[in-house]
């Protein structure tokens, strides 16, 4: 039933890359306490479960702890506290079994740049004691897009192509669980969409997928998501439920003078907060009595023209920001 089970995991370490403390769990040590940080406490690590065949997304910005979770689950890091199992195997004591059966795509495009597309795929197939032919059906949809370039060196592919190759290499041995750490970061929106389409097809084949991303709009593509910030999960649920749990009304407001609109909306005592969202501003109203026409009047008095206000359903990004602000 559960492909991954995580119980109270926490990990604190000094990352040489970023030059400061990183990690997950409430007992996270923040080197510099002048910044808003999670409360220090005893116990309380991260816990979550992933059902078999689910696409579970970990959504959050850089430095939130996504990669730490991935590294613990793929047995590359030992947790300070807590336990976790993947496919029923413990990440600490039975790490060899996990390493034999999962697919992993780490943050950077970790392929052999000077091997060709074909050679890379062959290599990873062999390392996992299989061949390309054996599981070709599984990677076909993805691989066919880069197959015309199979004799080209991996280093010479574009970002989107490298991604597809990396995904194929992670899949070629038919893993039961797929770990994808920020596979779409730095890739253009079109390739990103295509990638998620491929993930959906994999889910249909029964593969459990744990994926992380900083792009909030990709959250809706997952079955369930966990929002992460500063080493803690803010919420774990389906995207729909999270959206439903958004407190306050949410309105999208437009006018001819967007920057002025932003300051005016923020100054108003009826708005909880207001953020720019592309060509509209999202305003969260916490006064039940305020109406759309009421706000429109207020703005007209301030000199705004061509005012457009609609009630909208919150996006995951709205929810995330509300949760950060507490």
């Amino acid at each position, binding site marked *: 039933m559960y492909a991954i089970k995580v119980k109270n995991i926490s990990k604190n370490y000094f990352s040489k890359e970023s030059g400061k403390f990183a990690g997950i769990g409430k007992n996270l040590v923040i080197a510099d306490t002048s910044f808003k940080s999670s409360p220090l406490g005893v116990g309380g690590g991260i816990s979550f479960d992933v059902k078999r065949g689910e696409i579970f997304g970990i959504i959050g910005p850089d430095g939130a702890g996504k990669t730490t979770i991935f590294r613990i689950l793929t047995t590359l890091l030992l947790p300070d506290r807590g336990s976790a199992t993947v496919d029923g195997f413990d990440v600490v004591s039975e790490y060899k079994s996990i390493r034999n059966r999962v697919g992993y795509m780490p943050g950077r495009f970790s392929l052999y740049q000077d091997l060709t597309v074909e050679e890379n795929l062959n290599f990873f197939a062999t390392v996992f004691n299989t061949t390309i032919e054996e599981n070709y059906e599984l990677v076909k949809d993805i691989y066919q897009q880069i197959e015309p370039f199979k004799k080209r060196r991996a280093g*010479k592919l*574009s970002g989107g192509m490298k991604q597809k190759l990396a995904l194929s290499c992670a899949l070629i041995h038919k893993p039961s669980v797929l770990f994808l750490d920020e596979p779409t970061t730095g890739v253009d929106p079109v390739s990103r969409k295509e990638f998620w389409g491929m993930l959906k097809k994999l889910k249909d084949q029964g593969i459990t997928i744990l994926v992380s991303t900083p792009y909030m709009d990709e959250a809706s593509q997952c079955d369930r998501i966990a929002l992460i910030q500063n080493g803690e999960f803010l919420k774990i649920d389906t995207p729909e439920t999270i959206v439903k749990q958004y407190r306050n009304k949410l309105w999208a407001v437009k006018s001819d003078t967007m920057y002025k609109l932003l300051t005016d909306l923020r100054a108003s005592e009826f708005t909880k907060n207001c953020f720019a969202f592309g060509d509209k501003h999202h305003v969260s109203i916490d006064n039940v009595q305020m109406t759309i026409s009421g706000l429109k009047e207020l703005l007209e008095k301030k000199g705004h023209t061509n005012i457009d206000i609609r009630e909208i359903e919150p996006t995951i990004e709205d929810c995330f920001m509300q949760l950060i602000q507490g």
Partner: protein
Amino acid sequence: MYDIIQQEAKKVITAVNLTKKFGHFTAVDNISFEVERGEIFGFLGANGAGKTTAMRMLCGLSIPTSGKGLVAGYDIENQTELVKKSIGYMSQKFSLYDDLKVWENIELFGGIYGMNDIDIKEKTDELMKVLNFENERNKLVGSLPLGFKQKLAFSVSIFHTPRVVFLDEPTGGVDPITRRQFWELIYDATSKGITVFVTTHYMDEAEYCDRVSIMVDGRIEALDSPKNLKKQFHANSMDEVFQQLARKSTRIAD
């Protein structure tokens, strides 16, 4: 033609038939556009479409194969050093030195751009106040959270009040609140007359721009305000516009 361009002082960036070839491969194919003072100009495109190459030419880092360009009134081919002095630059990959303190970084970059000590000191104090960084003045940049680093990096890139600042995917991986705070800094900069030339993969950020250009396979396939582009492509969002255009790309794996 060249003389006319020279006279247009309102235009901070002018590109005329800019082309860059690497051997047989044409990275940038005959692009032409203008950017006015105080504009926020979005420069979009898929990876490999030619954005980075184009930006490098405009920054004076790469000589065009053909075509002409003026940045802050200086020729990007013959006056590269003058171009570099008049611009600011910030990219996601590198911005500040992690093992220097906040004020040391500011002093360094101020000095590089030829500011004198008094100006540097005054503006540093001002900047610390504006960003609410007074307590962090003496901290190593490497110890700051990513969002703060990005905001500081942007401020440093415009510290010497350049005519135009080039931002290469400045908000990648940053949390949504900090991202927006970053854009508020951008708005503030343009209100001071600094022109902002920015590339991004966040389509909602494209909406914050006055005008947007979308590059496909080395050519500019669309150039207009987000509003007009959406009308032109019958789209509800810049994301849709982008999806429609990028589909046309034939340059799949360069």
